[in-house]
């Protein structure tokens, strides 16, 4: 593999690791379950997508790359449904959302 592709793959992996870390810090720092989901969605989107793209570049043109890209598509389609189910369960359950102001 050429050096440029190595560099691209490494950069994407580092970006992914950084945003996964930021998302984890968000889950710890944010005040309630709904705002913590916002931190988790950074990990879900930019974090996981960058790591998967970095792995796809490292895999090169092969069946493995196809599998990684299929994983990426499935993640984009399935993650919002899971987040929505979690948020809906939280808001209809016993949790009072931490709100700065009520508005409509």
């Amino acid at each position, binding site marked *: 593999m050429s050096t440029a592709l190595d560099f691209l793959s490494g950069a994407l992996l580092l970006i992914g690791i950084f945003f996964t870390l930021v998302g984890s810090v968000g889950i710890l720092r944010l005040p309630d379950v709904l705002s913590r989901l916002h931190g988790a969605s950074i990990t879900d989107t930019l974090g996981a997508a960058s790591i998967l793209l970095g792995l796809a570049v490292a895999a090169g043109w092969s069946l493995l790359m196809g599998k990684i890209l299929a994983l990426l598509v499935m993640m984009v389609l399935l993650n*919002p449904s899971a987040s*929505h189910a979690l948020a809906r369960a939280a808001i209809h359950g016993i949790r009072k959302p931490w709100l700065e102001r009520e508005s409509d």
Partner: protein
Amino acid sequence: MLSPRFHRGHKSPEPPIVRKTVSLFFVLAGTWLLLSGHWSMLLLGLGLASVLLVVFCARRLGVIDDEGMPIEIIPGLVRYAPWLIQQIILSCLDVSKRILNPTMPISPAIVHIEAGQKSDMGRVSLANSITLTPGTISLDVGHDTIEVHALTAESAASLADGEMARRVHKKVEGE
């Protein structure tokens, strides 16, 4: 086909069931080839048999419809994706900055936004786009509004502006 199982947003004529069945076959076969990576005749034959069995079962169950095999909206989703990716990256950076800021300037709010989508697929696409974008999560999807939890007043305001709803309407529903 069986009678419609759920209420639908709009009445469509008889669904093009043959086209949907054929595309289900190709999607399943493509997935099987991608995940197996074996090319011997025996395994290909077994894969073909299982794909045909699944297509037959799906046809008998009546799940090959607009909801089970929404092939019509795929070109629209592809045209919509670049804008959504750009929005995801921008709001990821914004939310990351707020999380790493020691004072953590957030102002969570629950807002209701207009969702004038005609079809169920359009509403689902809009609600999923909202959830995919960091800083906003859809809590409840109604007939013409979506209840959204926003991390900041700015993200709530940019959503209420309706740019995303307009783009989903134009690109995904193609009207």
